[in-house]
């Protein structure tokens, strides 16, 4: 490692220590606080902010909607599917350790999956399940201009 890089590392580490975050990965330290360093990787606040805003429905999960790798993540995918929501952004945190930690920092939430509606953190699989069961999810989707498929299912029922 060149002297310049080493010096940069020390400065970065010192700055992180001042912020009371010594020992955490440099990419995260760079991404926090003032962000003056210009964004530090896929787990930085700025990067996560861009991801949660890129679509009305954004999910951070393990695996993909086609192949979830975790029962909790799968539950989120299945619930969205029940409501006819197939067009959403899903990010596989198993592919990106920086994002995996970054999304937990961003929402101050310790686990995956995480569901964002209109850029706002809504909760994990337990909360989504309860919202599904008590009708809140249909309402929240409506606010996003998404008509839940369950409404059409109910209509069909009424016709019979």
């Amino acid at each position: 490692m060149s002297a310049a890089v080493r010096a940069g590392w020390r400065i970065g580490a010192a700055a992180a220590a001042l912020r009371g975050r010594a020992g955490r990965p440099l990419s995260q330290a760079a991404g926090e606080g003032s962000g003056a360093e210009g964004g530090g990787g896929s787990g930085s606040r700025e990067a996560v902010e861009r991801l949660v805003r890129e679509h009305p429905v954004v999910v951070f999960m393990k695996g993909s909607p086609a192949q979830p790798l975790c029962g909790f993540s799968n539950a989120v995918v299945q619930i969205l599917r029940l409501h006819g929501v197939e067009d959403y952004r899903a990010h596989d945190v198993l592919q990106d350790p920086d994002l995996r930690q970054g999304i937990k920092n961003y929402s101050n939430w310790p686990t995956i999956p995480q569901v964002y509606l209109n850029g706002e953190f809504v909760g994990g699989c337990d909360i989504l399940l309860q919202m599904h069961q008590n009708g809140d999810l249909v309402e929240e989707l409506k606010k996003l201009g998404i008509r839940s498929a369950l409404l059409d299912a109910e209509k069909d029922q009424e016709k019979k």
Partner: protein
Amino acid sequence: MRGPLLAAAGGAMGGAGGPLARTIRAKLTAALQPTHLEVRDDSPHHGGPPGAETHFGVLVVSGRFTGLPLLQRHRLVHEALRAELAGPLHALQVIARTPQQWQSDPRVPPAPPCLGGSKRERRRG
């Protein structure tokens, strides 16, 4: 064991369990003064070795939740278990109800089945 937590309450769940289960129980009791509390170790269903204590589900019934949306209720639970979640506790299913809600609906959904995700990653140190 996949059945409702109620079925397990009288059996192995009551007060026993490994050290992490006991810690979870103690911390949630201290933080939230629950009128009803169940701590379920799901770790055996997620491919861990016996005694792994990595995946838990908790049912917390507490007056502290009154007036709070689900997100805030879960955050209170997470706060009580902050150290554990930063450490060995890998997954946590949370059901947080007020005493009134629990009385009118004592049903509890089972945890989703494991799809092997944790087998595909390195254990965090």
